[in-house]
């Protein structure tokens, strides 16, 4: 099978997810070539053909133009599968490509079982096998689902690609995450609040538990969106990625985006009333309990240790 991997580049850097695409192609035993709108000064370590468009000319986010550049490469390469990361870049560009190719697009693939792509359903509570009815397919891979077992090596054969397609959207620049606040990546213990805390006042009990363990408190996305906690305490793909010695997830169901931000924690404790919550998949210990009862009791006992 022949695959075309769509690598990503942002703000002068090649994104690490590029190597997840390479790992995926290796895992399914496919040939690959790669497409990138980026810069020749930052090439991926990759043995194969790299179709490179210049991001200083075509922009880092410019869907109509990237679409045409990529379609031209697909016409030359004739891949059976076009592979994206399921990222803000990938889920924006992939549907445009699948429609133009009249190909099935299978989103957020977490694994291939006997050649069949598998994707999560309902916040990862369920999974589904997806059957494509088209010969050519587009897949986008969940962040972190595929990884290289060793450091990437090689240098690509670069083929430059050009287009004169007009943009539809104007890119005006990046806005960095709010600076300052808490660097959760350095915390050894993190106690994190999810939607299950129920009301903003309960952040205080999460903070108290964090303190009793000598750590920081954090929050999942719904808690931050509700403005119960600051964005600089958010753990997950759109917040911080953390790897503490202990992560205590309180009332967090375990959406994929949250798990991606904390699954490298050394030891995970989950407190949840739902025994089947996906957080249980990554938890070393799942306490099936109402956090509003358990957390204050636990904090008190820790304080007198």
């Amino acid at each position, binding site marked *: 099978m022949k695959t075309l991997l769509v690598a990503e580049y942002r703000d002068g850097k090649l994104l690490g997810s590029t190597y997840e695409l390479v790992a995926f192609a290796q895992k399914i035993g496919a040939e690959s070539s790669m497409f990138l709108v980026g810069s020749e000064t930052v090439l991926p370590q990759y043995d194969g053909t790299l179709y490179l468009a210049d991001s200083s000319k075509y922009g880092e*986010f410019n*869907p*109509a133009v990237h679409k045409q550049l990529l379609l031209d490469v697909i016409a030359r390469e004739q891949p059976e599968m076009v592979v994206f990361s399921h*990222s*803000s870049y990938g*889920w*924006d560009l*992939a*549907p*445009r490509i*699948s*429609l133009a190719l009249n190909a099935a*697009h*299978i*989103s957020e693939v977490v694994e291939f079982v006997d050649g069949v792509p598998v994707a*999560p*359903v*309902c*916040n990862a*509570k*369920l999974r*589904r096998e*997806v*059957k*494509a*009815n*088209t010969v050519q397919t587009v897949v986008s891979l969940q962040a972190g689902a595929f990884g290289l077992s060793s450091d990437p090596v090689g240098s690509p054969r670069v083929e430059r690609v050009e287009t004169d397609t007009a943009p*539809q*959207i*104007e890119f*005006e*620049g*990046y*806005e960095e*995450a709010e600076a300052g606040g808490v660097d959760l990546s350095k915390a050894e*213990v993190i106690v994190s609040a999810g939607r299950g805390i129920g009301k903003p006042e309960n952040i205080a009990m999460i903070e108290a538990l964090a303190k009793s*363990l000598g*750590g920081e408190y954090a929050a999942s996305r*719904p808690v931050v969106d509700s403005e119960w906690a600051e*964005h600089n305490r958010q753990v997950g*793909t*759109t*917040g911080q*990625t953390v790897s503490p*010695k202990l992560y205590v997830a309180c009332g967090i169901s375990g959406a994929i985006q949250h798990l991606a931000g904390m699954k490298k924690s*050394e*030891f*995970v404790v989950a407190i949840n009333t739902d025994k089947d919550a996906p957080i*249980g*998949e990554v938890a*070393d*210990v*799942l*306490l099936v*309990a109402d956090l509003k009862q*358990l957390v204050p*009791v*636990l904090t008190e*006992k*820790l304080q007198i240790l």
Partner: protein
Amino acid sequence: MKILVCIKQVPDMESKFKVNADGRWYDAADLAWRMNEYDEYAVEQAVQLKEQVGADSDLTVLCIGPERVKETMKKALAMGADRGVNVADDNSHQKDPFEIASIIAEFAKEQGFDLIFTGMQSQDRGSAQVGVLVAELLGLPSISTIVDFSYADGRISAKRELEGGVKARVSCATPALVTCQLGLNTPRYPTLPNIMKAKKKELLSVELAELLKVEGKQETSKIYFPEKKGGGLVLEGDASDLADQLIQILKEKTAVLA
């Protein structure tokens, strides 16, 4: 200004899910249904735009699905949409993103909408394709995953949410489509007077056959519960006992209490 917002009804994600009889989707029985969370932000932004534009604006809410989706549509009407259009389909859960997008595009193509709002994905299927596909089918520019939106003089300015808390500032001319990310705004709770008013608003039904002219490109062949990995310990019981057990475990397995 003509505005369209597309919504989906999904089960409450806290539900106890079961696999249905043919093993290819979740069982729809005994579930609590609600508006897809992403779409609540889409409806709110559409209503805010309608309020900004004033009298010369018209907001339609579209939803594909069986009779029960009308309950969810009524919420959108109570939030401020002017009318609802239900594409009646008892098997919408079997449609792939391309079919759903084609139905919406077929509905929208002759109507001259200046702006179309969708959620960036659904909570159940989570493909994150439909909004962008609708725009492509209609030949409109689209901006996905927005967390900030403004409109002035025929142009929209938006911020896309990227990974790691970074945002991209982008703009484009209308007509256009945007897909809405969580946190874009604060969706309003419908007030009782507005719930009453919504009961009098137009809620049309359109036959699926009028709008579905394509075939799907993919299907779910099997749905199942993921295997529990890792063999994590599951503890139940009284809060005080659980706290003692956990402290013991933390002493044995981690260095954080040392």
